[in-house]
């Protein structure tokens, strides 16, 4: 990171004497130096004085009679320096200026941070104090933020910042600012959600202040969603980045100022939870209704969730693999089954696979997307492999990545010419289903993917291909499962055809084609719409989706996700899907192929 210049051009004064110094952090010294003149010692530091390169962070104007001190910060190895300062003195250089202190002067100048602040910083005007904090923040950006520097900056911030009226949560209070949640992820990215009530005046400023003192203006960003002012609390949500590193959990403050100049501030408690919690929180906010909801979705939610999904994509990887039995080395078909929580379903699938000779020729790969169950699955898989004598592989992911990532990572491990994605709650009906699906896919040249009829346990259709439909109210595009609920034997159900989309619960696709298209999209949260998205990408590549009803399996749609979370995920996913594919879908509607 390159060093940034201080907020204002600072003209380095000539020779300086050390007035005061304190440890801002374990390895950062802050010093106040005044021009050498009356009162300065004639003593020189010894030849073996400690020599530090620092940075001028403030050089205020003062009169010749009482010159105000220039403030320099420098990285200094404290342990070594304590000795040197005592013994040999100090030479501190910053820009063109040089500040000298003999051993005695240095000893006398060294004090605690509180005293330093009181003597040299606290008396400055508000603007000077703010500039000073900004310069210190940029220093931290350049030099790295250790835990002790973070604490030191926080102490300075608290001593120096302009306090505003603290927001009170009183009914009808004219000035209210409330932070509902604040999440940090990806190092220094933040997401805040809250509300404010500024009475009759418009909002002029909405500022986030990091614990280390960086001030970040939120108003005016395109990743801020602000509800229209309408005489009641104004909701807001924002995805923003701190330019300087931030490390402390406690100390975030939000300030708001309205057009009349009145300000209010409130504590913003940083959530201690992980990225998964951040994701859930943003998804929940993205489900908000009305104009505000739309602003959240297209602004902070889209950017924060995209970033969170990206972070997950980059971080999730295969941590462990195990092979049980002799998996065919050059299989034509690799069956890839993502597992989330319900590992008992493996046993049920194996009980059915065991009676199907075709399965023994496939590569069967279970991808565990619940890493906390890794040990449990390992033992269980070994037992099942022995009992059922059907070879299979297991791969464990480092974190819960969602079904798209699980399928993609499974595909990256698979050796088959064809990939057959299978959800864990899908049970075959009769043996021979894989061969039938493969023949259908291989026989149909333009087909990019093939999927069977999926039934519920009571013979109702669960899936006979997907179509896309615009919902009347929101105008968003949604998936419709063709003929869902009808009896599986209905003639219309039994008609094989190209369909606009296929469910990922059972989908066969050429492995090279899948890799070429980049696999399934990681953008959707948890698992939803990624199969529809993939179907449309196939269409864009001039490939069709083939519905093969002579092959039929049972899809039990076991409830892995709690319903409330599912609904919020779906809301966002549907919106995202619409945003990504609206144009293409409208074109299709106008010119159906």
């Amino acid at each position, binding site marked *: 990171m390159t060093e940034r210049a201080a907020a204002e051009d600072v003209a380095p004064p000539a020779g300086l004497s050390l007035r005061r110094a304190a440890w801002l952090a374990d390895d950062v010294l802050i010093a106040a130096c005044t021009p050498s003149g009356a009162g300065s010692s004639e003593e020189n530091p010894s030849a073996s004085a400690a020599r530090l390169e620092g940075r001028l962070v403030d050089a205020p104007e003062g009169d010749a009679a009482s010159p105000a001190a220039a403030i320099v910060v420098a990285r200094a190895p404290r342990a070594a320096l304590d000795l040197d300062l005592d013994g040999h003195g100090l030479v501190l250089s910053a820009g063109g200026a040089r500040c000298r202190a003999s051993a005695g002067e240095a000893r006398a100048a060294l004090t605690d941070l509180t005293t330093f602040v009181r003597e040299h910083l606290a008396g400055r005007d508000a603007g000077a104090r703010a500039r000073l904090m900004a310069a210190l923040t940029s220093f931290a950006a350049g030099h790295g933020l250790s835990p002790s520097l973070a604490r030191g900056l926080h102490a300075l911030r608290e001593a120096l910042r302009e306090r505003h009226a603290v927001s009170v949560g009183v009914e009808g209070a004219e000035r209210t600012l409330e932070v509902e949640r604040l999440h940090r992820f990806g190092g220094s990215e933040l997401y805040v959600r809250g509300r404010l009530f500024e009475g009759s005046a418009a909002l002029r400023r909405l500022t986030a202040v990091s614990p280390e003192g960086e001030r970040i203006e939120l108003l005016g960003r395109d990743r801020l969603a602000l509800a229209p002012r309408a005489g009641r609390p104004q909701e807001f949500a924002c995805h923003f980045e701190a330019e300087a590193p931030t490390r402390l959990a406690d100390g975030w403050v939000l300030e708001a100022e309205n057009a009349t100049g009145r300000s209010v501030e409130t504590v913003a408690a940083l959530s201690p939870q992980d990225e998964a919690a951040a994701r859930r929180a943003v998804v929940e906010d993205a489900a908000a209704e009305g104009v505000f909801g739309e602003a959240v979705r297209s602004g902070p939610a889209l950017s924060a969730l995209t970033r969170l999904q990206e972070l997950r994509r980059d971080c999730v990887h295969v941590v462990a693999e195990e092979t049980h039995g002799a998996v065919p080395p050059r299989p034509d078909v690799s069956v890839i089954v993502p597992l989330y929580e319900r590992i008992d379903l493996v*046993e*049920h699938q194996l*009980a*059915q696979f*065991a*009676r199907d000779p075709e399965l023994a020729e496939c590569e069967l790969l279970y991808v565990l997307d619940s890493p906390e169950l890794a040990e*449990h699955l390992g*033992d*269980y898989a070994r*037992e*099942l492999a*022995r*009992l*059922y*004598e059907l070879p299979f592989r297991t791969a464990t992911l480092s974190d819960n990545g969602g079904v798209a990532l699980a399928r993609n990572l499974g595909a990256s491990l698979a050796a088959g010419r064809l990939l057959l994605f299978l959800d864990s*709650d899908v*049970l075959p009906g009769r043996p021979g289903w894989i061969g039938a699906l493969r023949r259908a896919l291989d026989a149909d040249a333009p087909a990019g993917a093939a999927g069977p009829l999926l039934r519920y*346990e*009571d013979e109702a259709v669960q899936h006979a291909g997907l179509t896309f439909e615009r919902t009347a109210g929101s105008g968003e595009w949604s998936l419709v499962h063709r003929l869902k609920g009808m009896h599986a034997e209905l003639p219309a159900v039994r008609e094989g055809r190209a369909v606009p989309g296929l469910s990922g619960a059972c989908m066969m696709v050429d492995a090279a084609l899948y890799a070429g298209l980049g696999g399934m999209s990681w953008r959707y949260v948890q698992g939803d719409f990624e199969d529809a998205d993939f179907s449309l990408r196939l269409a864009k590549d001039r490939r069709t989706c083939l519905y093969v009803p002579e092959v039929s399996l*049972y899809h*039990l*749609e*076991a409830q892995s996700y709690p319903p409330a979370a599912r609904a919020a995920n779906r809301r966002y996913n549907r919106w995202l899907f619409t945003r990504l594919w609206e144009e293409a879908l409208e074109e299709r509607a106008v010119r159906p192929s």
Partner: protein
Amino acid sequence: MSRRRVLFVSHNHPKVRPGGAEGYAHELHLALRDSDEWEPTFLAKSGPPLSRSGRPHEGTYVTPVDGAEAEYFLYADGFDYDWLFGSMRHDKSLYTRHLRRFLEALRPDVVHFQHTLFIGYDAIREVRRTLPGVPIVYTLHEFLPICRAKGQMVRTMDGELCDEESPRRCHECFPEYSPQTFFLRKRFIQAQFGLVDLFVAPSAMLRDRYVAWGVPEERILLEDYGRRLPAAPPPDDERVGPRDRLGFFGQLNPYKGIDVLLEAMRRQAPDGGAQATLRVHGANLDLQEHGFRDRVEAMLAETRDRVIVAGEYAPDQVAPLMAAVDWVVVPSVWWENSPLVIQEAFAHGRPVICSDVGGMAEKVADRVNGLHFRVGDPASLAETIGRAVGTPGLWERLRAGIPRPHAMGDHVAVLAAAYERLLAGASRRTAS
């Protein structure tokens, strides 16, 4: 020629806890021991839940039954039996290691499962895996593979008889399990059953139920339990007066219908007409839940003048007890399969009054060798009892219509022939 070995697998040994299916299974084992061609071994699950004591020796999960050469206990200490699926959860080494070692040591030529309760359906798969050419036979005693509710197909919410399972209906009986879970259960059990070469059903009713559920018809043999019972009933004592002595033989629990019978006794008209008396032989009233127990005890108190509780009985003591009654009443409120008590009653020349459903109605022909009454209906039973007691010559006519019991010797012959056919088929397959 050396004798072929057949292994019987049971969920319990009658020495540990007496019971119908296990008692029959053990009798079959003893009968086969006398044959020249077959050398049987009996493997019975012991330990919890039916027995308090667990496995006695480290490093093995089998041990001989009280020193007997051809009878073993199988233990499952430390394994977690899933009552819903009928399988050991997670750790399958009971089958893949311990049962496997036993099978390899014994090397049976035929494996005949009497029950897999408390052991798990996976045992079938392990037998096929360890002894690939060996035929697997499985006797069906009730509806446990079909029905979670004690295998009786009686609905949990209202006690109504159920004649059709479906994921939805099973979920109605057990709301804590989703329809999808019941679908998984059925597919799981059927997957293991797919490895069975021959099922034995003691009643046509049971066979038909399993065929409807999905077992291929050609794979079920209809063959009733064989018994070591007297071939002909004892000659009857001359009695003056009506045949008015009823007998109940069985557990005093709700599904055997003792409360229906007692209520019928309570309703007997006190007018000068024929009055029946009842001797109740059975036990385990103390094990039932409060409401039922209190009701039964209240009815026993009310009918003290004509109902006697004769207490428990051992299976070999049944002859004099049967002789002391004229009619045996089987008022079960579930379908029943082939109640052993009916065979015992017939063997002792006692016509049977029973519910008009399931295996009871199949084994007792109404007005030929017994009388039917409407299942669960005390008024109907009271009326039937009145008819039984008050119709001159009826008892004699029904007694004359009693069929000969199915002798154990004949039963063994049928099973042995089945084993032979399976072995011949298996060796043909191996040869080709």
